[in-house]
Structures are given as structure tokens and as C-alpha cells.
């Protein structure tokens, strides 16, 4: 296969940039709902894609199934790309490389009998259900995926990857009359089956938390000082800032480029933010991105100043900067686009306890349900929170959605604690491409004067 790819990637004669991607993916998904197997499926997919950029026209991308007609696809693509309109774009070329990136998990999930997986999940579902009499629905959702990818491009790169991914999540729905609360938590990683063992305590906790939410009070809307726990702070930086540092948003927008000019003070000096796809074995990690560019650590904000952005080969070309290894795709069905990898807020020096001390009335926002961005505006939701009154953490509260504005909110971060940790379960959707693993990391962070949605105005 490698020989064929090497040969095909050399076909361009007129300065075209060409990429071929072949994928084989086997996935097992199991969903235990109370005492039943609600979903149990094995899927197998084999497909490929071809992407060509002609120096005088635009991008040609074709996604197909089966690996047999590669030669025809390439010939047809090269003939067709010439006919497209002009796009005025280009790519930064790289050095060719030949590599084989294999992965040996401790306990390979491919070798596990289906029965063993199902048994373990049943046991978890029982614990989740028995954690509280209020739990009406206990869902245990398991997924393992083994993806192998062949990649070749006209720079002379031929890369073979093994990309395993495994996740397990617990979802408990608790009910009291008409009141319904849902709580979820789980694990995910680039790992083997060992990752999903020994999670009894987590299952129990998820059931308990769903129950606790039934008795928590809704948090009234208004403007508050907020402390974010490391999990939510990671989601916050992903939504509040990460997306706008993806260079495809501004590569053709001069006004936006001026607004986001490197070196501009954009946040308070306590804030430094990075994206790093080269870290070992996080879910967003890989030695190369999906254009065959080496991944790296990129500082997006350093001590409050805008210091970098995330690039594909194309956005780097358009902005006259260097690729950063952030072109990623969720599968052969889509072209790679600029994405985050593992994104984090660098730890500060104060202890997390210190962040609460001078908050008269605020909220401690914990874990997350999700987040959403439309360029400068964003929202993000904690799973629950606690009132902060007179510097002390008080009762549990719920129904909290935080919102903000990039240009205002980053300046309102006035303290970053020293307890950094990664959260791996997160995923991100952009355009049509949903479900890309994007771990986030952060310590506790304090924000002043955040707009919080809620039913009653405080």
C-alpha cells in the first residue's frame, strides 16, 4: 500500500499540492440503559479521501469508499481541479517524512470478548441505579474505536498511524414528580481497556449527583463574580478564546486580523494560554496533524498578550505565518480544517482556596454540560455550582449558564490558581465536523462580573 501511495502522491505535474488519506475503522458501541442493552453495535468502515490544490484554481476534495479505484480517483481529480474557479489560495509546503506510528495499549480492547465488555457495563449500570432511589434512568455508554490511517502527500510524506480511542460515560436521570435532572461524567483516552476498569466509585457518584441536583436551588440570573473549577475553566478557554484563535476565521478578513493582531493586549496579565498537539498520549495528541505537519506547542496568549494562532498549511500561507500542526479531520469524509488539539490555561501561583476569599456574593461553577461560540460571543454551562457568600462556599445550586464576550471577559480574569489538570472527555464540533476529541486543561480560575442566565433576576 505504501508503495502505491508514494507513487500516486508523485503524480502532480503542474505544481498541485495533493493528499491521499485511507482509513479503516472498527468501532464497538454499547449502551446499557437500566437493565437492558439498549444499543450494541459493531461497525466497520473503509474509506478514503483525496485533496488537491491547483496553484491557479481552488481545492478539489473527494471522499469515497473502498480502496480499489485510487488511481482513477487521482487521475480524475487532477483532470478536474484545473476546471475550478480561481481561489487565490495556496499552501505552505513541508519536508517529506516517512513514519509508522503504532500504538500498543496495555489491554488491547480489540481482543476483548464482547461478553466481557457487556458484563462490566452491566455491573456499572447496577451501581449507578442503586446509588439513589430517585434515579429513574441509568445509562452506561461505552465506545471503543481502532482507526488505522494511511496518509501520503506530494511533499513526499507517507505516514501510517494507529489511532485508538476509548470512552465510557455514566448518565443518571433523577426524577421527583415533574422535576427531572440529568448528570453525567465519564472517562476517555487514547488507551486500552484498562481505562474503563475500576470506575465503581465514579458510577456511584454520578447517581448521587443526579439526586443532589433535584434538591439544589436554581441559581438566579444576574452579574456575578465566578470561580471556575479546572474542568469548566478548560471549556471556558476553549469557547471563549480557542475558537477565535483558529486562523481560518480571520485568514481572509482584514478587519478581524487587525482586531486580533499579534502582540495586542487581550487579557489580564495573569493569563497564558497554549495549544499543544505534541504532548504525549492525550486524545488531541499526534506527532503529525492530518496534513502531515509536525505538531507543536503554540502560545496563544502570553501574560495577557495575543501571541499566536492556530494554522493549517493554507491559513499559514494566507497570513504569511508558519503552519502549527492544527489541521485536523474527524474522518475521511471531510477535509482537514483548523482545530484545537489539547488546549490549556497555564497554572498560576496562588492556591485555589485563595480565589474565594474576597468574593462577597458569587458562584463556584463546577464541571460542564457544554459550551458554544459565535466568534466574540460565547456561552458555557457548568453541571452545577455552589453559592459563594462572604468568601465561603455555600449551598449547591443548578441551572447556571454563563455567557461572555471575548473582548470583555478575558480582561476580567484576575486570578489563576496552581492546581492545573487535564480533562480528556471533551469533544468539539465545527462546521459539519462533530465529535473531534479536544482535551482541555486548566487550574481554578476567577472571573469578575460574569453575566449568568437564570429565571429570576437577582
Amino acid at each position, binding site marked *: 500500500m505504501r508503495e502505491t501511495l508514494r507513487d500516486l502522491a508523485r503524480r502532480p505535474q503542474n505544481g498541485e499540492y495533493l493528499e491521499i488519506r485511507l482509513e479503516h475503522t472498527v468501532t464497538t458501541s454499547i449502551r446499557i440503559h437500566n437493565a437492558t442493552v439498549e444499543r450494541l453495535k459493531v461497525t466497520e468502515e473503509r474509506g478514503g479521501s483525496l485533496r488537491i490544490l491547483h496553484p491557479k484554481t*481552488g481545492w478539489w476534495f473527494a471522499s469515497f469508499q473502498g480502496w480499489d479505484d485510487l488511481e482513477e480517483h487521482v487521475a480524475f481529480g487532477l483532470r478536474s481541479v484545473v476546471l475550478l474557479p480561481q481561489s487565490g489560495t495556496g499552501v505552505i509546503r513541508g519536508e517529506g517524512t516517512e513514519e509508522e506510528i503504532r500504538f500498543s495499549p496495555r489491554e488491547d480492547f480489540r481482543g476483548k470478548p464482547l461478553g466481557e465488555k457487556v458484563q462490566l457495563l452491566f455491573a456499572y449500570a447496577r451501581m449507578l441505579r442503586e446509588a439513589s432511589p430517585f434515579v429513574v434512568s441509568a445509562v452506561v455508554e461505552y465506545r471503543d474505536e481502532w482507526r488505522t490511517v494511511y496518509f501520503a502527500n506530494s511533499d513526499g510524506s507517507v505516514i501510517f498511524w494507529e489511532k485508538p480511542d476509548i470512552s465510557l460515560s455514566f448518565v443518571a436521570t433523577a426524577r421527583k414528580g415533574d422535576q427531572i435532572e440529568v448528570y453525567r461524567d465519564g472517562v476517555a483516552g487514547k488507551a486500552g481497556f484498562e481505562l474503563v476498569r475500576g470506575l465503581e466509585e465514579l458510577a456511584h457518584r454520578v447517581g448521587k449527583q443526579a439526586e443532589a441536583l433535584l434538591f439544589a436551588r436554581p441559581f438566579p440570573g*444576574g452579574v456575578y463574580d465566578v470561580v471556575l473549577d479546572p474542568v469548566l475553566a478548560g471549556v471556558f478557554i476553549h469557547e471563549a478564546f480557542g475558537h477565535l484563535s483558529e486562523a481560518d476565521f480571520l485568514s481572509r478578513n482584514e478587519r478581524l486580523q487587525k482586531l486580533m493582531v499579534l502582540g495586542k493586549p487581550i487579557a489580564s496579565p495573569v493569563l497564558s494560554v497554549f495549544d499543544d498537539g505534541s504532548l504525549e498520549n492525550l486524545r488531541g495528541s499526534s506527532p503529525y496533524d492530518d496534513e502531515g505537519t509536525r505538531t507543536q506547542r503554540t502560545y496563544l496568549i502570553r501574560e495577557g498578550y495575543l501571541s499566536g494562532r492556530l494554522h493549517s498549511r493554507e491559513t499559514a500561507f494566507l497570513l504569511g505565518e508558519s503552519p502549527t500542526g492544527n489541521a485536523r479531520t474527524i474522518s475521511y469524509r471531510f477535509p482537514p480544517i483548523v482545530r484545537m488539539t489539547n488546549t490549556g490555561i497555564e497554572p498560576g501561583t496562588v492556591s485555589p482556596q485563595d480565589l474565594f476569599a474576597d468574593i462577597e456574593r458569587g458562584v463556584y461553577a463546577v464541571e460542564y454540560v457544554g459550551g458554544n461560540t459565535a466568534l466574540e460571543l460565547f456561552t458555557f454551562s457548568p453541571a452545577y455550582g455552589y453559592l459563594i457568600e462572604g468568601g465561603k462556599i455555600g449551598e449547591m445550586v443548578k441551572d447556571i449558564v454563563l455567557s461572555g464576550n471575548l473582548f470583555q471577559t478575558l480582561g476580567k480574569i484576575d486570578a489563576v490558581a496552581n492546581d492545573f489538570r487535564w480533562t480528556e472527555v471533551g469533544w468539539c464540533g465545527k462546521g459539519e465536523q462533530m465529535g473531534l476529541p479536544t482535551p482541555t486543561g486548566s487550574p481554578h480560575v476567577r472571573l469578575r462580573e460574569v453575566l449568568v442566565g437564570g429565571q429570576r433576576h437577582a
Partner: protein
Amino acid sequence: MFDCGRSLWGDSAMREVVSIAKARGIQADLFVRKVWEKSIEYEAGVFRGYVAREHTGCGLRVIRSDRRLGFYAFTLPCAPSEAVEQALEVSAFGDAVDFTIPSYPSTTEWKDFVDPRLEGLSVREMVEIGEYLVGQLKATHPGVLTNVRIAAGREERELFNHHEEEIRFARTFFEISIEATRVKDDDILTVYVERSWGNRDIDVDDLLKEVKLRLDLSERMVSVQSGQYPVLFTPSGCMVLLYPLLYGLNGRNIAFGKSPLQDKLGKVLFSSLFSLVEVPQEPWALGSCPFDDEGILTPEERVLVESGKVEDGFWDLWSAARTGRKTTASGFRRSPWDMPEPGFSVLKIKNGLRDRETLVEELEEGLVVDSLLGLGQSNIASGFFSCGVQLGFYVKGGEIQGRVKNVMISGNAYEALKNIRELSRDCRWVQGSILAPYILVEPIQVNAAS
């Protein structure tokens, strides 16, 4: 320019899969979805590229004689006997189910919704539409950067069962979306408008008009005080009210006790102005289908909510059997790789008597909400929502004063549906599958940053 409809694996192999199942005394259905799609993109007013996709996905569901369910999904080519083996292996650990794979109707008297103008749509034609949209916006709104996506394609759904019956239908689709961005000082405005339909008849001028209107209304930024206001939700804005209701009407959620509507079918819960119907055979709407993804013939019309009274939910074979009901032809698959789940085909919210302009004119003070951030991130099960307003306008004295920013709206969708004051006469299709009017709700909690 694109080679379409090429069959990678003939129907004979599909037939062989279900025949093997039949010979082994197993119930089975094989769902096959073949799609080809081509699209072009403009970024900041400049042509970017062309994307072509051709995919076939197959999902094989088996029920053994001891009622255990198995599922194996695959792409082609795959040996028929191997597909059956894989599904059977899964079924050893599957749930015992109370339904059987149905027989398919022998008649094939439905019409495919295939528009030859879309099957034959050339890249050149797509580029012409793209250039027109970009050019028009550049002429009237020079400071605005426009992203455009135009996609067209054809989808074919086929079902084969162990009775050795088969049914199929095909449809074309056409989608145009515009995302217009205007940057002024440190304000970034994004206006997103889309049209999706089963045939070529998307009115691009109407689409342009809608983008321009939103841009013009956003010229002025105004502030709003926190408090309770009447809110006029546009057709796309009112999805915040609809999503929790669809969650509640989902038969699977009802079967698992997760729906607040569990014991409320047949009761009046909402304003008498609110009625919702499913119209599965609506010509050219995107979700329309003669049968669902389990092979059950769809009705022409089905009432879900009538004058505030909840009449019925969405039931697939599994959830219907679980609760002793009949399927409502609502078993849909997100993809061939997914098993069927309760879903909807095409929905219509009943409209009112007066135009949206009149509703705005009569509004003393309030908001018009067009798009929201964080839909589905609140507790959708309980109906609670709290969303950032991505695009919304402040109304005073019956006139739109300008755009509001850094504002959130919160409430409970079930409560809001009780508090509907009026629905507009004029409606618009959202994502080609939900026909919705403007909905005026009072009161809604608004929280502002300033």
C-alpha cells in the same frame, strides 16, 4: 464533472444477506443508505473549493428466535455471510425485544422526490449562484464578508427483510447557506441564514433579502435593561421552545421515565393557540418519506399537539412494544451506522392570523430573538433553557430600535408554550423540515450584562 450513482455492490448481495438470515431462521432487516453530494464554498467572498462525496452505509439488524437483538453496520464491500455472522455474534449479548421485523407493503405507489435539475446540477451552475450571492451582498453591503455554501445531492434509502421483501425511495436535496460577518471596531456581527429543500426551487433573492434585513437592523446597537419582556421568536429562534418538547414526545424517553410528558398524553398543557402536526409526506420537504427507517408506511398527517392538548408522541418499533403501543412510523436512523430511534419526519407549527409586522407594531416594548447560543446545553429534560442571544433586536413603541448584545434569555420551554400570546400568519421552513411561524411569548426573563 462528478460521477454519480455508481453502484459499488449490487442489490443481489443485499438480498443475499437477508436470505442467509431467513435460511437460518433469524428475523433480519438490512437498511442501506446511498448518498452522493457535491458542494462548493466561498470564504470571505472568494471561491474556496469543491467537495464531492459518495458513500454507502449498511446496517443489519437481526432478531434471533430467543428474541435477542443484534446489530452490525458496515461499508462495502463486505461478504454477506460475514455480515450475518457479525450481527449474530453481537446478538448473543443483545437485549430480548418484544417486537418483530415487519413485513413491507407490496405496493410501491409512492413518488420519489427526485428533481432531475439537481441530479444534473453542474459545478458551473453552483458557481453562478455563489457569484451572484457574493456579488449582490458586496454591492449593497461592501464592509460585509460573505461565506457561502451550496450543496446538492441525492439520497436513496433501501430496506431488505428476511421475508425477502424490499422497499426503497430516493430524494434529492439542495442547501444554500450564507454567513455574513461585519467587523466594526471591536464588534463582530455574524448573520447566518439557510435554505434547504428537496428540489431546485430555492428562492435565492428571498434568502438575500433576509440576510440584508438582518444586517440593516443590526446597524445600531442598543442596550436593554434586565427584566421580563414579551419576546417574539423568529422561526429559527423558536427552536429553543421546540427542542425540549420533542425530547418530551420521544417514545424512548417516555418508555424510560425520562420525559416530563410521560403521564400527560391527552392533557391540555399549552396555550390553545399552539398546535403541532407531523406531515411525513409533505412534497419536497427534507424529512419527507413514504416509510420510516423501519419500513412502516407513514401517514399523511398526524396530530401531536392540538390546541394545547398533547395528543401523541413519536414511537418506533422498540419503544412502542415496550409501552404496549403501536409504532407511529417514527423510527429514524441518524446514519446507517445507527439503530432506529424515535424521531420526526416533517413538522408544522400551526400559524396565526396576522403578519409578523403587525405583531412587532403592536409590541410596546420587547425583544425579537432570531438565533441563540447554547441551545441544548441547559436541562432539556426539564424544559429549562438559558441561552445567549446571538442575534436579537430590541423593540420599543412598535419599532425595532437595533441589535442587542451580551444578553441572555431564560425560562422553561413548557411554561413558555403556555404563555404564547400570538403566532404570526407568515411561516418559514427551518432546515427544510420544520415549518414555523413567529411566536410571541410573554413574559420571558431577559438578563443583560450592562
